[in-house]
């Protein structure tokens, strides 16, 4: 397994190269640049051109790419055009809200989605099953940001129980922190929970129909033990795969959720950076998220070994 892990980590480099080329090309070839945003609407074309030269944006594309990727290999993400500080520092400052939002959302998704899927599978075609699936379908259909706005209107505007947005550091004020994170975590986690519920139900139904489950029941094993120790464990393999995938979508969903709830996380930083064409931040953030995504999937693959003893990675 160690060799497998090392091999997967080495494969990270070509992944980063491809992601780097793609993101660099997209941001530089798309219209718009930071100079016009910095200078404002009254600026003349000459003013904008002068600033572009100063920022190195008039250099040939391959020169800019080589300069940037060379820095990446030295683990230097460059400096933000607008924040006047290293990109790595800016991302690190904003990591806490995004990581915590993702963790809370994923936790909610698992705590709601997995039991809902199990119950739905056990009570197949019953009223409970239909109600759970109806809620799950709506959860998948409603975009997180729409749900977020609805939650704000109800709990912040109408009832005044919670703030409409903002963030409190968990180290400074844990209670305020959780009060600010309840709605964002729920709006993001709910759609992930809905997806998980449907998939867990499907996986459970498949395993519950297997011969070994029928055999276990025939041997007189209690139904609860059949479900938890036999059916669920085998249903976990596709579930863990989906959780790994969900982690990626939650990170992406955090971008919009942070904007709606005014959370100063990495997602909001990326949105702001795209709007003002802060190229180093966009590139650095995308690369960071790509690394994180690859590592998350590697973790999922390693978890398989513990879930399914049949799975062994060649050494």
């Amino acid at each position, binding site marked *: 397994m160690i060799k497998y892990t090392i091999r997967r980590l080495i494969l990270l480099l070509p992944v980063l190269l491809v992601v780097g080329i793609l993101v660099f090309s997209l941001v530089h070839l798309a219209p*718009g640049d930071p100079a016009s945003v910095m*200078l404002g609407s009254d600026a003349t074309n000459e003013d904008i051109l002068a600033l572009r030269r100063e920022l190195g944006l008039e250099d040939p594309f391959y020169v800019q790419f080589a300069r940037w990727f060379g820095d990446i290999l030295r683990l230097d993400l460059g400096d933000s055009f607008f924040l006047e500080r290293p990109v790595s520092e800016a991302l690190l400052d904003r990591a806490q809200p995004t990581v915590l939002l993702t963790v809370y959302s994923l936790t909610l998704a698992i705590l709601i989605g997995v039991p809902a899927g199990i119950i739905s599978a056990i009570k197949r075609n019953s009223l409970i099953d239909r109600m759970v699936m109806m809620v799950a379908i709506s959860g998948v259909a409603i975009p997180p940001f729409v749900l977020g706005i609805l939650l704000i209107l109800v709990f*912040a505007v109408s009832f005044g129980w919670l*703030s409409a947005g903002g963030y409190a550091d968990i180290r400074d004020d844990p209670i305020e922190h959780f009060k600010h994170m309840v709605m964002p975590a729920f709006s993001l986690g709910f759609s992930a929970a809905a997806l998980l519920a449907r998939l867990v139900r499907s996986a459970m139904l498949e395993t519950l129909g297997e011969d070994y489950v029928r055999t276990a029941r025939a041997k007189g094993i209690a139904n609860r033990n059949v479900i938890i120790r036999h059916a669920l464990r085998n249903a976990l393999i596709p579930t863990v795969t989906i959780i790994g995938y969900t982690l990626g979508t939650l990170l992406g969903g955090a971008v919009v959720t942070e904007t709606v709830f005014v959370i100063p996380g990495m997602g909001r930083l990326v949105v702001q950076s795209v*709007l003002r064409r802060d190229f180093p931040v966009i590139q650095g953030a995308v690369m960071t998220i790509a690394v994180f995504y690859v590592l998350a999937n590697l973790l999922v693959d390693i978890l398989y070994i513990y879930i399914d003893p049949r799975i062994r990675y060649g050494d």
Partner: protein
Amino acid sequence: MHETEKHLALMSDALENSRLSRRQLLKRSAIFGLSAPVIGSLLAACGGEDDEEEPAAESDPTTAAPAGEATDEPEAEAEPTDAPEDEGDPTEASGAEETPEEQAEGELDAEDEERYGGELRIAIRNEPPTIDFHLTSSTETFHVAMHMFETLFTWDEEFQLVPDLVDTHEISEDGLLNTLHLRQGVLFHDGSELTAEDVVATIDRWANVIGVGFGEQLMSATNEMRIVDDYTIEFEMSEPFGTFGVVLSRQNNGCNIYPKEIAEAAGEEPIEEFIGTGPYRFVEYEPDQHFLMERFEDYVYRDEPSSGYGGRKHAYFDAIRFIPVTDEAARVAGLRAGDYDFSTDTSSDQLEPLQGDENVVAEAGPTNSNDQILLNMDQGMMLDINMRKAVQAAVNCEGILLAAHGEGFFELNPGLMWENTVWHSTAGEDLYNIGDLDLAKQYLEDAGYDGTEVRILVSQEWLPSYNTAVILQQQLEDAGMTASIQAVDAPSYSDTRADTSSWEIAITFFNFRTDPAQLPTMRCEWGNLWCSDAKVDIVARLFSEVQFEDRFDAGVDLQQLIYDEVPAVKTGDGKPLLAYSARLQNVELVRFGYAFWNMWFEE
């Protein structure tokens, strides 16, 4: 610390540092309902000044204890020193003869004291790209920076130019010598005094090192800028320069005055310290979270009453916090939930839901945008005057404005400048809002129009502009043109507009300006690159003429030229939706950038 104790501490400090006289202490003590023994011990401890002595600095409510939440206290007890019971009129508390001026000041102070306190939270659409106004014309920078920094001149309620950091401005008879006498005793936030060296260093950076457009124009007309003494600067001009005060006034990309050391150290790079002379001082900046400033307790204000952006600037709020909230729905929801006190850039669509909320005020503000349809004067089919006149003839302004801004949020105005300003003119109005499709078709025929697509460039982020493009497209097609819309985001808009081969029409707008010299279209190298000889001549007059009447005539001529040459078609003036907490009072300074001094909270 209890509120009264806090005020006591502040008054004690003010008395010790000679910023408060005995008389003023007694006035303020009455307001806070302090008992005689307390007042006596305060005076004894601080060695309170004789009534005849003036305080070291100009008396300033902002240096005394703000009333804030202590508004109940003035109504509490009668003072043993004969302060009246109900309103605690401080002018009677001293028991000594007062001049009418002192009496008026006392009444003002009494009213003022109740307004002090609280933190104003403003939700702004975008984060300022920089706070250094020398480097940008960003609106967000305008909103934030102008609370911490000041300029040499500013604008009163009629948008007449008035001095701000300047005390007096003299112009020689031949217009070749401008002499500025600075106000004395004005302090920067770091405690140092504003002198001529600071002003010269700042203007040099703004005009020469960075080379801001107005600054370049000023310097190109200036032979020498020299310091005469600590508070006097002379500008020896090569030619009369009628916009001297205008270019040094409060405006987009304006010459905010910095300390000499900061201006010189920064050079072309953004300033690293935010030290100004404004009524608020910098506290902290957390990107994506907030920009926080607090009242500058040693602010030295002008004696004149408040008038527009000039005169006395009352910093009633203890602090102002600007919070970037990109999403409009989030700004509005936050306002309604009480998380913010003011929301900028709220579309008129929000009027109805907001008016139903008793905690929020939603109303149309004064006109502050000037909507323009720019025609490409650099290349392509719009170089033909008949094509431009066809567009001018086809445009029905009312239809466009209704879609762009909504009912009640616009005004038809043919003027280059806004109504209710001294510059407004109706020159060329017979060519405004024509909406004659037959006339347009005639012009198209004269141009030999062959059906080539007319590309309309617009930013989809500016909803009024986008809606303008949608209606304009329809009007042009009704006139017989083939028109398409290229909707892009804001950074792409600037980039694409710079490539004049990619569009025929570009939709834009100007924010409110106080003088036509401030309009970006004055410059040949801006936007649609309009640079006819006639324009250049008129703009030169606009900048160089010294008498207002001559400048006004140049403005009228320019407006008529715009209608004759048609480099652009004006549709009208838009009004913003002002959305703010119901407890916010005196929301007046909203037209030429938001200024939150002179506003206060009232529950």
